[in-house]
Protein backbone atom coordinates (compact mmCIF):
# COMPACT_ATOMS: atom_id res chain seq x y z
CA UNK A 1 0.00 0.00 0.00
CA UNK A 2 2.89 2.35 0.80
CA UNK A 3 4.36 1.68 -2.64
CA UNK A 4 1.02 2.33 -4.36
CA UNK A 5 0.62 5.56 -2.42
CA UNK A 6 4.14 6.60 -3.44
CA UNK A 7 3.37 5.74 -7.07
CA UNK A 8 0.20 7.85 -6.98
CA UNK A 9 2.05 10.79 -5.39
CA UNK A 10 4.68 10.48 -8.12
CA UNK A 11 2.00 10.47 -10.82
CA UNK A 12 0.35 13.58 -9.36
CA UNK A 13 3.67 15.38 -9.05
CA UNK A 14 4.44 14.61 -12.67
CA UNK A 15 0.94 15.72 -13.74
CA UNK A 16 1.93 19.12 -12.37
CA UNK A 17 5.48 19.07 -13.76
CA UNK A 18 4.29 18.01 -17.20
CA UNK A 19 1.73 20.86 -16.98
CA UNK A 20 -1.16 18.44 -17.44
CA UNK A 21 -2.97 19.29 -14.20
CA UNK A 22 -2.57 23.05 -14.76
CA UNK A 23 -3.98 22.68 -18.30
CA UNK A 24 -6.92 20.75 -16.88
CA UNK A 25 -7.50 23.51 -14.30
CA UNK A 26 -7.40 26.21 -16.97
CA UNK A 27 -9.98 24.27 -18.98
CA UNK A 28 -12.23 24.08 -15.93
CA UNK A 29 -11.85 27.83 -15.38
CA UNK A 30 -12.86 28.45 -18.99
CA UNK A 31 -16.08 26.55 -18.39
CA UNK A 32 -16.69 28.65 -15.28
CA UNK A 33 -16.29 31.78 -17.39
CA UNK A 34 -18.97 30.41 -19.69
CA UNK A 35 -21.39 29.98 -16.77
CA UNK A 36 -21.24 33.73 -16.11
CA UNK A 37 -23.03 34.37 -19.39
CA UNK A 38 -25.72 31.73 -18.96
CA UNK A 39 -29.00 31.64 -17.05
CA UNK A 40 -29.28 29.06 -14.23
CA UNK A 41 -31.45 26.83 -16.44
CA UNK A 42 -29.01 27.02 -19.34
CA UNK A 43 -26.09 26.41 -17.01
CA UNK A 44 -27.80 23.34 -15.57
CA UNK A 45 -28.49 22.04 -19.07
CA UNK A 46 -24.93 22.47 -20.24
CA UNK A 47 -23.20 21.19 -17.06
CA UNK A 48 -23.49 17.45 -17.87
CA UNK A 49 -21.84 18.08 -21.23
CA UNK A 50 -19.07 20.14 -19.61
CA UNK A 51 -18.32 17.40 -17.08
CA UNK A 52 -18.62 14.66 -19.69
CA UNK A 53 -16.12 16.37 -21.99
CA UNK A 54 -13.64 16.55 -19.10
CA UNK A 55 -14.31 13.01 -17.84
CA UNK A 56 -14.35 11.34 -21.22
CA UNK A 57 -12.49 13.21 -23.95
CA UNK A 58 -10.09 15.32 -21.88
CA UNK A 59 -9.16 12.44 -19.57
CA UNK A 60 -8.35 10.23 -22.54
CA UNK A 61 -6.43 13.03 -24.21
CA UNK A 62 -4.36 13.94 -21.17
CA UNK A 63 -3.70 10.33 -20.22
CA UNK A 64 -2.53 9.65 -23.77
CA UNK A 65 -0.27 12.70 -23.79
CA UNK A 66 1.17 11.70 -20.42
CA UNK A 67 1.73 8.11 -21.52
CA UNK A 68 3.48 9.04 -24.75
CA UNK A 69 5.69 11.60 -22.99
CA UNK A 70 6.81 9.03 -20.41
CA UNK A 71 7.27 6.38 -23.05
CA UNK A 72 9.42 8.77 -25.06
CA UNK A 73 11.46 9.49 -21.91
CA UNK A 74 11.93 5.73 -21.42
CA UNK A 75 10.83 6.20 -17.82
CA UNK A 76 8.22 3.44 -17.93
CA UNK A 77 11.03 0.98 -18.66
CA UNK A 78 12.83 1.74 -15.44
CA UNK A 79 9.56 1.66 -13.48
CA UNK A 80 9.13 -1.92 -14.66
CA UNK A 81 12.32 -2.96 -12.88
CA UNK A 82 11.28 -1.45 -9.55
CA UNK A 83 9.87 -3.69 -6.82
CA UNK A 84 6.28 -2.87 -7.78
CA UNK A 85 3.82 -4.79 -9.92
CA UNK A 86 2.48 -3.70 -13.30
CA UNK A 87 -0.96 -3.70 -11.62
CA UNK A 88 0.26 -1.12 -9.09
CA UNK A 89 1.71 1.08 -11.81
CA UNK A 90 -1.55 0.95 -13.77
CA UNK A 91 -3.64 1.58 -10.65
CA UNK A 92 -1.56 4.67 -9.87
CA UNK A 93 -1.95 5.97 -13.40
CA UNK A 94 -5.69 5.32 -13.37
CA UNK A 95 -5.98 7.05 -9.98
CA UNK A 96 -4.12 10.09 -11.31
CA UNK A 97 -6.42 10.19 -14.29
CA UNK A 98 -9.44 10.05 -11.97
CA UNK A 99 -8.04 12.97 -9.99
CA UNK A 100 -8.20 15.01 -13.19
CA UNK A 101 -11.83 14.04 -13.74
CA UNK A 102 -12.84 14.63 -10.10
CA UNK A 103 -11.02 17.96 -9.94
CA UNK A 104 -12.84 19.16 -13.03
CA UNK A 105 -16.25 17.94 -11.80
CA UNK A 106 -15.71 19.52 -8.37
CA UNK A 107 -14.75 22.90 -9.87
CA UNK A 108 -17.70 22.82 -12.26
CA UNK A 109 -20.14 21.91 -9.47
CA UNK A 110 -18.69 24.63 -7.23
CA UNK A 111 -19.03 27.19 -10.01
CA UNK A 112 -22.65 26.15 -10.56
CA UNK A 113 -23.34 26.85 -6.88
CA UNK A 114 -21.33 30.08 -6.55
CA UNK A 115 -22.60 31.67 -9.78
CA UNK A 116 -26.16 30.34 -9.93
CA UNK A 117 -26.85 28.96 -6.45
CA UNK A 118 -27.60 25.50 -7.89
CA UNK A 119 -26.81 22.51 -5.67
CA UNK A 120 -26.37 18.83 -6.55
CA UNK A 121 -25.96 15.54 -4.76
CA UNK A 122 -22.18 16.02 -4.58
CA UNK A 123 -21.33 12.61 -3.17
CA UNK A 124 -23.24 10.90 -5.96
CA UNK A 125 -21.71 13.22 -8.56
CA UNK A 126 -18.19 12.34 -7.43
CA UNK A 127 -19.07 8.63 -7.35
CA UNK A 128 -20.49 8.71 -10.88
CA UNK A 129 -17.56 10.77 -12.15
CA UNK A 130 -15.16 8.29 -10.55
CA UNK A 131 -16.92 5.35 -12.24
CA UNK A 132 -17.06 7.15 -15.59
CA UNK A 133 -13.46 8.28 -15.09
CA UNK A 134 -12.08 4.80 -14.48
CA UNK A 135 -13.95 3.48 -17.51
CA UNK A 136 -12.52 6.18 -19.72
CA UNK A 137 -9.04 5.83 -18.20
CA UNK A 138 -9.11 2.21 -19.38
CA UNK A 139 -10.24 3.33 -22.84
CA UNK A 140 -7.52 5.98 -22.83
CA UNK A 141 -4.90 3.35 -22.05
CA UNK A 142 -6.13 1.08 -24.84
CA UNK A 143 -5.91 3.95 -27.32
CA UNK A 144 -2.47 5.05 -26.03
CA UNK A 145 -1.05 1.53 -26.12
CA UNK A 146 -2.31 0.96 -29.63
CA UNK A 147 -0.90 4.15 -31.10
CA UNK A 148 2.66 4.89 -32.18
CA UNK A 149 2.70 8.44 -30.88
CA UNK A 150 0.41 11.14 -29.60
CA UNK A 151 -0.65 12.24 -33.10
CA UNK A 152 -1.76 8.75 -34.07
CA UNK A 153 -3.56 8.50 -30.74
CA UNK A 154 -5.51 11.65 -31.62
CA UNK A 155 -6.66 9.85 -34.77
CA UNK A 156 -7.85 6.89 -32.72
CA UNK A 157 -9.59 9.23 -30.28
CA UNK A 158 -11.45 10.92 -33.11
CA UNK A 159 -12.57 7.51 -34.31
CA UNK A 160 -13.70 6.59 -30.80
CA UNK A 161 -15.64 9.84 -30.39
CA UNK A 162 -17.28 9.39 -33.77
CA UNK A 163 -18.43 5.86 -33.05
CA UNK A 164 -19.32 6.14 -29.36
CA UNK A 165 -19.92 9.79 -28.51
CA UNK A 166 -21.72 11.05 -31.59
CA UNK A 167 -24.77 8.78 -31.01
CA UNK A 168 -24.98 10.09 -27.46
CA UNK A 169 -24.97 13.69 -28.70
CA UNK A 170 -27.61 12.82 -31.30
CA UNK A 171 -29.69 11.30 -28.50
CA UNK A 172 -29.40 14.43 -26.38
CA UNK A 173 -30.53 16.48 -29.38
CA UNK A 174 -33.57 14.24 -29.77
CA UNK A 175 -32.39 12.72 -33.05
CA UNK A 176 -32.51 9.22 -31.52
CA UNK A 177 -35.74 8.04 -29.89
CA UNK A 178 -35.72 7.54 -26.11
CA UNK A 179 -36.71 3.88 -26.44
CA UNK A 180 -33.23 3.15 -27.80
CA UNK A 181 -31.44 4.51 -24.75
CA UNK A 182 -30.84 1.04 -23.27
CA UNK A 183 -29.05 0.12 -26.45
CA UNK A 184 -27.09 3.35 -26.34
CA UNK A 185 -25.75 2.39 -22.92
CA UNK A 186 -23.35 0.11 -24.75
CA UNK A 187 -21.49 3.30 -25.57
CA UNK A 188 -19.24 4.13 -22.61
CA UNK A 189 -19.73 7.80 -23.48
CA UNK A 190 -23.48 7.49 -23.21
CA UNK A 191 -23.29 5.44 -20.00
CA UNK A 192 -21.18 8.23 -18.49
CA UNK A 193 -23.42 10.90 -19.94
CA UNK A 194 -26.52 9.22 -18.51
CA UNK A 195 -25.01 9.07 -15.02
CA UNK A 196 -23.79 12.65 -15.01
CA UNK A 197 -27.01 14.04 -16.51
CA UNK A 198 -29.03 12.16 -13.90
CA UNK A 199 -27.16 13.61 -10.99
CA UNK A 200 -27.03 17.17 -12.37
CA UNK A 201 -30.77 17.24 -13.13
CA UNK A 202 -31.71 15.20 -10.07
CA UNK A 203 -33.81 12.84 -12.22
CA UNK A 204 -32.91 9.19 -11.77
CA UNK A 205 -33.94 6.02 -13.56
CA UNK A 206 -32.49 3.68 -10.97
CA UNK A 207 -32.28 0.58 -13.19
CA UNK A 208 -30.58 2.43 -16.01
CA UNK A 209 -28.19 4.26 -13.68
CA UNK A 210 -27.25 0.99 -11.98
CA UNK A 211 -26.76 -0.68 -15.35
CA UNK A 212 -24.57 2.21 -16.56
CA UNK A 213 -22.45 2.07 -13.39
CA UNK A 214 -22.07 -1.69 -13.60
CA UNK A 215 -21.26 -1.56 -17.30
CA UNK A 216 -18.55 1.07 -16.90
CA UNK A 217 -17.01 -0.76 -13.93
CA UNK A 218 -17.02 -4.14 -15.72
CA UNK A 219 -15.72 -2.55 -18.92
CA UNK A 220 -12.87 -0.89 -17.01
CA UNK A 221 -12.02 -4.15 -15.24
CA UNK A 222 -12.09 -6.16 -18.47
CA UNK A 223 -10.03 -3.63 -20.43
CA UNK A 224 -7.40 -3.31 -17.70
CA UNK A 225 -7.22 -7.07 -17.22
CA UNK A 226 -7.28 -8.28 -20.81
CA UNK A 227 -6.12 -5.35 -22.95
CA UNK A 228 -4.02 -2.91 -20.92
CA UNK A 229 -2.13 -5.15 -18.47
CA UNK A 230 -0.82 -7.66 -21.04
CA UNK A 231 0.19 -4.92 -23.47
CA UNK A 232 1.74 -2.43 -21.05
CA UNK A 233 5.12 -4.10 -20.50
CA UNK A 234 5.61 -5.00 -24.14
CA UNK A 235 4.64 -1.49 -25.23
CA UNK A 236 7.14 0.10 -22.83
CA UNK A 237 9.92 -2.18 -24.03
CA UNK A 238 9.33 -1.27 -27.65
CA UNK A 239 10.11 2.29 -26.57
Amino acid at each position, binding site marked *: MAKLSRLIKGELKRLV*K*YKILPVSLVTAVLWIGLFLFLSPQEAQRITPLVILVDVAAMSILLLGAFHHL*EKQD*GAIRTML*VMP*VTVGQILTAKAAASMVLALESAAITAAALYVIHGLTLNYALLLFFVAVAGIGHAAIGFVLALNSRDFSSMLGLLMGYLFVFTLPSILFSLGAIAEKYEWLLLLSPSHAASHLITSVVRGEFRVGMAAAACLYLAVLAGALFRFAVHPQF*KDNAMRG
Partner: protein
Amino acid sequence: METAFRVRDLRFRYPTSSADTIKGISFDVREGEVFGLLGPSGAGKSTTQKIMVKLLEGYEGSIQYFGRDLGSLGSAFYEEIGVGFEVPVHFTKLTALENMEFFAGFYQKTADIQELMERVGLWEYRQVKVGEYSKGMKVRLNFVRAMLNRPRFLFLDEVTNGLDPKNARVIKDMIAEYRDQGGTVFLTTHLMNDVEQLCDRVAFCVDGRLVEISTPRDLKLKYGRREVKVEYRKNGVLASAVFPLDGIGFNEEFQQLLQTAEVETIHSGETSMEEIFIIVTGVELDGQAEQAD
Protein backbone atom coordinates in the same frame (compact mmCIF):
# COMPACT_ATOMS: atom_id res chain seq x y z
CA MET B 1 31.35 -19.69 -5.43
CA GLU B 2 27.56 -19.83 -5.76
CA THR B 3 25.86 -19.68 -9.15
CA ALA B 4 23.88 -16.46 -9.39
CA PHE B 5 22.15 -17.24 -12.69
CA ARG B 6 21.85 -20.67 -14.25
CA VAL B 7 20.44 -20.48 -17.78
CA ARG B 8 19.69 -23.72 -19.60
CA ASP B 9 18.51 -24.20 -23.19
CA LEU B 10 16.93 -20.76 -23.32
CA ARG B 11 14.81 -20.17 -26.37
CA PHE B 12 12.71 -17.14 -27.20
CA ARG B 13 10.67 -15.96 -30.15
CA TYR B 14 9.06 -12.54 -30.43
CA PRO B 15 5.34 -12.79 -31.18
CA THR B 16 5.75 -11.02 -34.52
CA SER B 17 8.78 -13.06 -35.59
CA SER B 18 8.78 -16.29 -37.57
CA ALA B 19 12.08 -17.55 -36.12
CA ASP B 20 13.59 -17.85 -32.67
CA THR B 21 15.72 -14.89 -31.60
CA ILE B 22 17.37 -16.97 -28.87
CA LYS B 23 18.13 -20.50 -30.03
CA GLY B 24 18.85 -22.64 -27.02
CA ILE B 25 21.62 -20.97 -25.06
CA SER B 26 23.05 -22.20 -21.76
CA PHE B 27 25.43 -20.45 -19.37
CA ASP B 28 26.08 -19.74 -15.71
CA VAL B 29 26.89 -16.42 -14.09
CA ARG B 30 28.84 -17.00 -10.91
CA GLU B 31 28.43 -14.83 -7.87
CA GLY B 32 31.15 -12.18 -7.61
CA GLU B 33 32.17 -12.11 -11.26
CA VAL B 34 31.70 -9.72 -14.15
CA PHE B 35 30.19 -11.76 -16.96
CA GLY B 36 30.23 -10.15 -20.39
CA LEU B 37 27.78 -11.07 -23.12
CA LEU B 38 29.22 -9.91 -26.41
CA GLY B 39 28.01 -10.06 -29.95
CA PRO B 40 27.03 -8.08 -33.02
CA SER B 41 23.78 -6.16 -33.34
CA GLY B 42 20.75 -8.38 -33.43
CA ALA B 43 22.60 -11.36 -31.98
CA GLY B 44 20.22 -11.60 -29.03
CA LYS B 45 22.25 -10.00 -26.22
CA SER B 46 19.68 -7.45 -25.15
CA THR B 47 16.86 -9.96 -25.57
CA THR B 48 18.69 -12.33 -23.24
CA GLN B 49 19.13 -9.56 -20.69
CA LYS B 50 15.47 -8.51 -20.96
CA ILE B 51 14.42 -12.11 -20.27
CA MET B 52 16.77 -12.30 -17.27
CA VAL B 53 15.30 -9.11 -15.76
CA LYS B 54 11.77 -10.41 -16.40
CA LEU B 55 10.85 -7.77 -18.95
CA LEU B 56 10.16 -10.43 -21.55
CA GLU B 57 8.07 -13.47 -20.81
CA GLY B 58 7.11 -16.57 -22.73
CA TYR B 59 10.57 -18.09 -23.03
CA GLU B 60 11.40 -21.80 -23.15
CA GLY B 61 14.11 -23.49 -21.13
CA SER B 62 14.99 -22.77 -17.53
CA ILE B 63 16.47 -19.83 -15.70
CA GLN B 64 17.40 -20.00 -12.04
CA TYR B 65 18.41 -17.06 -9.90
CA PHE B 66 20.38 -18.24 -6.86
CA GLY B 67 18.66 -21.61 -7.15
CA ARG B 68 15.12 -20.25 -7.50
CA ASP B 69 13.11 -20.45 -10.70
CA LEU B 70 13.03 -16.97 -12.23
CA GLY B 71 9.37 -17.30 -13.17
CA SER B 72 8.37 -17.88 -9.57
CA LEU B 73 10.02 -14.67 -8.35
CA GLY B 74 7.69 -11.74 -7.72
CA SER B 75 8.42 -8.03 -7.72
CA ALA B 76 10.71 -8.54 -4.70
CA PHE B 77 13.26 -9.82 -7.26
CA TYR B 78 13.81 -6.17 -8.17
CA GLU B 79 14.93 -5.39 -4.62
CA GLU B 80 18.02 -7.47 -5.38
CA ILE B 81 18.92 -6.41 -8.88
CA GLY B 82 19.96 -3.17 -10.49
CA VAL B 83 19.38 -2.56 -14.18
CA GLY B 84 21.34 -0.05 -16.21
CA PHE B 85 19.69 0.53 -19.56
CA GLU B 86 21.56 1.74 -22.60
CA VAL B 87 18.90 4.31 -23.46
CA PRO B 88 17.91 7.16 -21.12
CA VAL B 89 15.18 6.11 -18.71
CA HIS B 90 14.32 9.16 -16.64
CA PHE B 91 11.50 11.65 -16.29
CA THR B 92 12.89 14.50 -18.36
CA LYS B 93 10.77 17.20 -16.74
CA LEU B 94 12.04 16.29 -13.28
CA THR B 95 15.49 17.17 -11.97
CA ALA B 96 18.10 14.44 -11.62
CA LEU B 97 17.73 14.49 -7.85
CA GLU B 98 13.92 14.32 -8.05
CA ASN B 99 14.28 11.29 -10.31
CA MET B 100 16.72 9.53 -7.99
CA GLU B 101 14.66 10.28 -4.88
CA PHE B 102 11.52 9.01 -6.56
CA PHE B 103 13.10 5.70 -7.57
CA ALA B 104 14.99 5.25 -4.30
CA GLY B 105 11.73 5.52 -2.36
CA PHE B 106 10.61 2.10 -3.56
CA TYR B 107 13.53 0.11 -2.17
CA GLN B 108 14.06 -1.29 1.31
CA LYS B 109 17.77 -0.52 1.27
CA THR B 110 19.22 2.36 -0.67
CA ALA B 111 22.64 3.72 -1.45
CA ASP B 112 23.70 7.26 -0.60
CA ILE B 113 22.41 9.25 -3.58
CA GLN B 114 24.79 12.14 -2.96
CA GLU B 115 27.81 9.85 -2.80
CA LEU B 116 26.87 8.11 -6.05
CA MET B 117 26.13 11.34 -7.89
CA GLU B 118 29.34 12.91 -6.65
CA ARG B 119 31.36 9.92 -7.85
CA VAL B 120 30.01 10.26 -11.39
CA GLY B 121 30.28 14.06 -11.33
CA LEU B 122 26.56 14.85 -11.37
CA TRP B 123 25.94 16.16 -7.86
CA GLU B 124 26.46 19.77 -8.86
CA TYR B 125 23.89 19.27 -11.62
CA ARG B 126 21.36 17.58 -9.36
CA GLN B 127 18.82 20.40 -9.65
CA VAL B 128 18.97 20.44 -13.45
CA LYS B 129 16.09 18.82 -15.32
CA VAL B 130 17.17 15.57 -16.95
CA GLY B 131 15.80 16.84 -20.26
CA GLU B 132 18.62 19.40 -20.22
CA TYR B 133 21.32 16.79 -19.59
CA SER B 134 23.81 15.81 -22.31
CA LYS B 135 23.89 12.22 -23.56
CA GLY B 136 26.91 11.42 -21.41
CA MET B 137 25.25 12.84 -18.30
CA LYS B 138 22.17 10.72 -18.94
CA VAL B 139 24.36 7.63 -19.29
CA ARG B 140 26.01 8.39 -15.94
CA LEU B 141 22.63 9.00 -14.34
CA ASN B 142 21.45 5.63 -15.69
CA PHE B 143 24.35 4.04 -13.84
CA VAL B 144 23.46 5.84 -10.61
CA ARG B 145 19.86 4.65 -11.04
CA ALA B 146 21.07 1.06 -11.41
CA MET B 147 23.15 1.31 -8.22
CA LEU B 148 20.44 3.03 -6.15
CA ASN B 149 19.26 -0.06 -4.28
CA ARG B 150 22.74 -1.43 -3.50
CA PRO B 151 21.94 -4.42 -5.74
CA ARG B 152 23.24 -7.91 -5.26
CA PHE B 153 23.26 -8.42 -9.02
CA LEU B 154 23.81 -5.70 -11.57
CA PHE B 155 22.74 -5.76 -15.23
CA LEU B 156 24.49 -3.22 -17.41
CA ASP B 157 23.75 -2.64 -21.07
CA GLU B 158 26.44 -0.70 -22.98
CA VAL B 159 27.28 1.07 -19.75
CA THR B 160 30.01 3.37 -21.07
CA ASN B 161 28.62 3.98 -24.54
CA GLY B 162 28.70 7.72 -25.25
CA LEU B 163 31.05 8.58 -22.37
CA ASP B 164 34.37 10.38 -22.69
CA PRO B 165 37.42 8.35 -21.57
CA LYS B 166 37.62 10.10 -18.17
CA ASN B 167 34.00 9.41 -17.24
CA ALA B 168 34.16 5.91 -18.72
CA ARG B 169 37.13 5.27 -16.40
CA VAL B 170 35.13 6.47 -13.37
CA ILE B 171 32.24 4.14 -14.18
CA LYS B 172 34.59 1.19 -14.80
CA ASP B 173 36.35 1.84 -11.51
CA MET B 174 32.99 1.83 -9.72
CA ILE B 175 32.03 -1.46 -11.39
CA ALA B 176 35.35 -3.01 -10.38
CA GLU B 177 34.86 -1.81 -6.78
CA TYR B 178 31.34 -3.21 -6.78
CA ARG B 179 32.66 -6.58 -7.96
CA ASP B 180 35.47 -6.50 -5.38
CA GLN B 181 32.87 -5.98 -2.66
CA GLY B 182 31.08 -9.17 -3.76
CA GLY B 183 28.67 -7.83 -6.36
CA THR B 184 27.91 -9.73 -9.57
CA VAL B 185 27.63 -8.04 -12.96
CA PHE B 186 26.05 -9.12 -16.23
CA LEU B 187 27.42 -6.82 -18.90
CA THR B 188 26.33 -6.56 -22.50
CA THR B 189 28.58 -4.44 -24.66
CA HIS B 190 30.28 -4.06 -27.98
CA LEU B 191 33.14 -2.00 -26.48
CA MET B 192 36.08 -4.35 -26.22
CA ASN B 193 37.99 -1.95 -23.93
CA ASP B 194 35.27 -2.48 -21.33
CA VAL B 195 35.56 -6.22 -21.78
CA GLU B 196 39.34 -6.29 -21.39
CA GLN B 197 39.23 -4.11 -18.30
CA LEU B 198 36.20 -5.52 -16.53
CA CYS B 199 35.12 -9.00 -17.53
CA ASP B 200 36.16 -12.13 -15.65
CA ARG B 201 34.40 -14.30 -18.23
CA VAL B 202 32.79 -13.58 -21.56
CA ALA B 203 30.34 -15.30 -23.84
CA PHE B 204 29.99 -14.54 -27.53
CA CYS B 205 26.48 -14.55 -28.89
CA VAL B 206 25.98 -14.95 -32.63
CA ASP B 207 22.57 -15.30 -34.24
CA GLY B 208 20.91 -16.37 -31.01
CA ARG B 209 23.55 -18.96 -30.09
CA LEU B 210 26.55 -18.87 -27.77
CA VAL B 211 29.66 -19.81 -29.70
CA GLU B 212 32.30 -19.25 -27.01
CA ILE B 213 32.33 -18.95 -23.23
CA SER B 214 35.65 -18.43 -21.55
CA THR B 215 37.90 -15.99 -19.73
CA PRO B 216 39.47 -13.19 -21.76
CA ARG B 217 42.90 -14.67 -20.94
CA ASP B 218 42.04 -18.13 -22.21
CA LEU B 219 40.48 -16.68 -25.33
CA LYS B 220 43.62 -14.70 -26.02
CA LEU B 221 45.68 -17.85 -25.63
CA LYS B 222 43.33 -19.84 -27.82
CA TYR B 223 43.09 -17.31 -30.64
CA GLY B 224 46.56 -15.76 -30.29
CA ARG B 225 49.68 -16.88 -32.14
CA ARG B 226 52.34 -18.55 -29.99
CA GLU B 227 55.14 -16.43 -31.28
CA VAL B 228 57.36 -13.48 -30.39
CA LYS B 229 57.94 -10.64 -32.79
CA VAL B 230 61.08 -8.53 -32.39
CA GLU B 231 61.58 -5.21 -34.11
CA TYR B 232 65.19 -4.09 -34.23
CA ARG B 233 67.67 -1.86 -36.02
CA LYS B 234 70.78 -3.19 -37.63
CA ASN B 235 73.16 -0.80 -39.36
CA GLY B 236 70.44 1.84 -39.00
CA VAL B 237 67.86 -0.22 -40.90
CA LEU B 238 64.57 -1.24 -39.23
CA ALA B 239 63.90 -4.97 -39.42
CA SER B 240 61.79 -7.58 -37.67
CA ALA B 241 61.93 -11.26 -36.88
CA VAL B 242 59.37 -13.73 -35.56
CA PHE B 243 60.26 -16.62 -33.24
CA PRO B 244 58.13 -19.47 -31.90
CA LEU B 245 57.16 -18.86 -28.26
CA ASP B 246 57.68 -22.50 -27.35
CA GLY B 247 61.28 -23.00 -26.25
CA ILE B 248 62.09 -19.32 -26.67
CA GLY B 249 64.56 -19.48 -23.74
CA PHE B 250 66.70 -21.94 -25.67
CA ASN B 251 66.37 -20.31 -29.09
CA GLU B 252 69.94 -19.33 -29.97
CA GLU B 253 68.96 -17.14 -32.91
CA PHE B 254 66.61 -15.17 -30.65
CA GLN B 255 69.26 -14.79 -27.94
CA GLN B 256 71.87 -13.71 -30.43
CA LEU B 257 69.53 -11.08 -31.84
CA LEU B 258 68.93 -9.66 -28.38
CA GLN B 259 72.67 -9.46 -27.79
CA THR B 260 73.70 -8.01 -31.14
CA ALA B 261 70.86 -5.90 -32.46
CA GLU B 262 69.39 -2.62 -31.28
CA VAL B 263 66.01 -3.99 -30.17
CA GLU B 264 63.14 -1.49 -30.39
CA THR B 265 60.07 -3.59 -29.50
CA ILE B 266 59.21 -7.14 -28.45
CA HIS B 267 55.62 -8.36 -28.77
CA SER B 268 54.07 -11.70 -28.02
CA GLY B 269 51.49 -12.95 -30.52
CA GLU B 270 48.70 -12.34 -28.02
CA THR B 271 45.61 -11.16 -29.82
CA SER B 272 43.20 -8.43 -28.75
CA MET B 273 39.59 -8.97 -27.73
CA GLU B 274 38.64 -6.95 -30.78
CA GLU B 275 40.35 -9.46 -33.07
CA ILE B 276 38.78 -12.33 -31.17
CA PHE B 277 35.38 -10.69 -31.56
CA ILE B 278 35.85 -10.48 -35.31
CA ILE B 279 37.13 -14.05 -35.57
CA VAL B 280 34.37 -15.53 -33.40
CA THR B 281 31.41 -13.51 -34.65
CA GLY B 282 32.58 -12.93 -38.19
CA VAL B 283 31.46 -9.32 -37.87
CA GLU B 284 33.62 -6.20 -38.03
CA LEU B 285 33.18 -3.99 -34.98
CA ASP B 286 33.34 -0.65 -36.79
CA GLY B 287 30.25 -1.25 -38.85
CA GLN B 288 28.00 -1.63 -35.86
CA ALA B 289 29.84 0.23 -33.19
CA GLU B 290 27.12 2.78 -32.59
CA GLN B 291 24.27 0.35 -32.16
CA ALA B 292 23.28 -2.49 -29.96
CA ASP B 293 20.55 -5.03 -30.57
